[in-house]
């Protein structure tokens, strides 16, 4: 009876694994198979790099990668600049109306970005930010979720550490930079993974504010490529898709632990 239970459990898990991995395997296999073979169902019968060559010829890959990189890094850097001090203030400083700010922060987390997208779009159009890289970065700099996450972490730091810093003569800024930030490395790394993966994969917002490929990021480029004359060129499409996830896959291999923690945050964020 116990053996049977084990078998059933493992079968179910294996089925789940296949369900998750099949699309990725299909993508990888297709990327190295000529489109004609894909249509005939003969994956990897004649392995080739031709699809990648086609993509490289037709798509400004360099621009896409560079744009994605700039957007990811700038979003995270500016997020640190804005969210770390905000979270610290909400966690540790005493000021009038602190409870209201925390309350508002909670409310902000509950509002989905889709609701804010149109007002932000209208503002950006007014100030001429449409079709620029800053348009892809600025909406995510003051992230309520990032502030909330960091605030929770700062609250969990021992109060006696802050008392010691006060007695040792460290002011607010010195405490933040020399003690709190070094002590928060795990939280900052997790936030970094979360922010960078979501910025890398973002399509919804770029599809709002981008109209051509000059400021396009990778996901926008993938969709543009699929919607172009390559509608049925499955091989090059899958090669393009492979290229789009490659950097994150490599990063994942190097920093698995941080990634899993950061992605768990993404799950909490919904």
């Amino acid at each position, binding site marked *: 009876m116990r053996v049977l239970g084990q078998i059933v459990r493992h079968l179910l898990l294996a089925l789940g694994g296949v369900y998750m991995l099949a699309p990725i395997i299909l993508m990888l296999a297709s990327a190295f198979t000529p489109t004609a073979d894909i249509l005939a169902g003969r994956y990897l019968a004649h392995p080739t790099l031709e699809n990648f060559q086609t993509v490289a010829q037709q798509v400004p890959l360099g621009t896409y990668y560079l744009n994605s990189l700039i957007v990811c890094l700038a979003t995270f850097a500016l997020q640190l600049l804005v969210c770390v001090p905000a979270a610290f203030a909400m966690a540790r400083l005493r000021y009038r109306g602190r409870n209201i700010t925390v309350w508002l922060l909670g409310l902000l987390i509950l509002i989905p970005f889709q609701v804010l997208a149109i007002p932000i779009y209208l503002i950006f159009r007014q100030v001429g930010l449409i079709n620029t890289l800053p348009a892809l970065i600025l909406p995510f700099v003051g992230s309520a979720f990032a502030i909330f996450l960091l605030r929770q972490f700062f609250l969990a730091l*021992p109060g006696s*550490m802050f*008392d010691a810093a*006060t*007695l*040792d*003569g460290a002011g607010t800024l*010195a405490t933040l930079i020399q003690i709190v930030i*070094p002590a928060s*490395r795990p939280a900052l790394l997790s936030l970094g993974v979360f922010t960078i993966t979501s910025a890398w994969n973002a399509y919804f917002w770029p599809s709002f504010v981008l109209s051509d490929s000059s400021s396009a990021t990778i996901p926008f480029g993938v969709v543009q490529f699929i919607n172009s004359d390559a509608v049925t060129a499955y091989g090059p499409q899958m090669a393009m898709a492979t290229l789009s996830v490659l950097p994150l896959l490599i990063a994942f291999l190097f920093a698995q632990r941080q990634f899993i923690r950061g992605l768990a945050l993404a799950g909490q964020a919904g």
Partner: protein
Amino acid sequence: MSAPVHIRAVEKTFEGAKRASTRILNEVTLTAPAGQITTILGESGCGKTTLLRIVAGLESATGGSVHIGERDVTSVHPSRRGVAMVFQNYGLYPAKTVGKNIEFPLKMAGVPIAQRHTRSLAAARLLHIDHVMDRLPAQLSGGQRQRVGIARALARDPEILLMDEPLSNLDAQLRIEMRAELVAMQRRIGSTMLYVTHDQTEAMTMSDRVVVMRGGHIEQQGTPEEVFRVPETTYVAAFLGNMNLAPAPASETGAGAGITLGVRPEHFLPADRVAAEPGDLRIEGRVEFAELLGTDRILHLRAGNTLWRARVDAALPLHEEITMVARAANLHRFDTESGVRVAA
């Protein structure tokens, strides 16, 4: 270099929800003499830690003043009071090495780097942690962490050393060792120490002066001997040394109504070895329970409605009925209503 601390009529009330305020400290006045260890002893919630934090400047007093030497420091910033503090859960900086932890107050004070190194190393040597200077706090044992906390406090050469239950998170054996070491360290550097604890053994063994606090006020203060030998209230009598407290039998005290009699367990003597004299307390009791402590045994004796604890030699033969005598000089009398000592 040390200075006395004068705490004068310090009050602290917290404004709670719905305008209800809670009084934590009620006109607390005490002096911690220069170069000595003064222990503030009390149960949790008695206000002892709040009082220490007010001396440090981490909390502000609602009323009263704190003086260090001649200086009124009531509204001076914590880092400029000349005080350093050691915390129950160490309060170390987790991302800094031991060396950097100890150096941090010197760095903030703008001490040149070479001097920082020598001073932090000297403090580390004093606490026997100079071999772990490059480790992070997470790689240390609890005892070592607290040594780092103490070394960091010493690095600044503070006039006043404040300790908030520094040994409470350590193992029993280590606590006993550290107790003696802390006293030896304080004698060497000679700074004034204010030491908060709930552990009466620490208070008795370490202090030059003991201040017993209860519910936000001082119950009694004096040398450990004074406080132990002549407890001013039933609370102090029970808290320090676990004194037997029972309504005085009318026959023993004459007009016994309203008087509580106190006898320390170790002051009971077996009646068959000593002759009772007039004024002595004589208890004829049935042994309900006996706890062997090694060389001693605690007997729980039932006499009428009262259960007495008597500490006797473990070799004393146990009978079901035992008669005990306590000398008149060892009897303490308290007013039952107020708990205050009554002159014999």
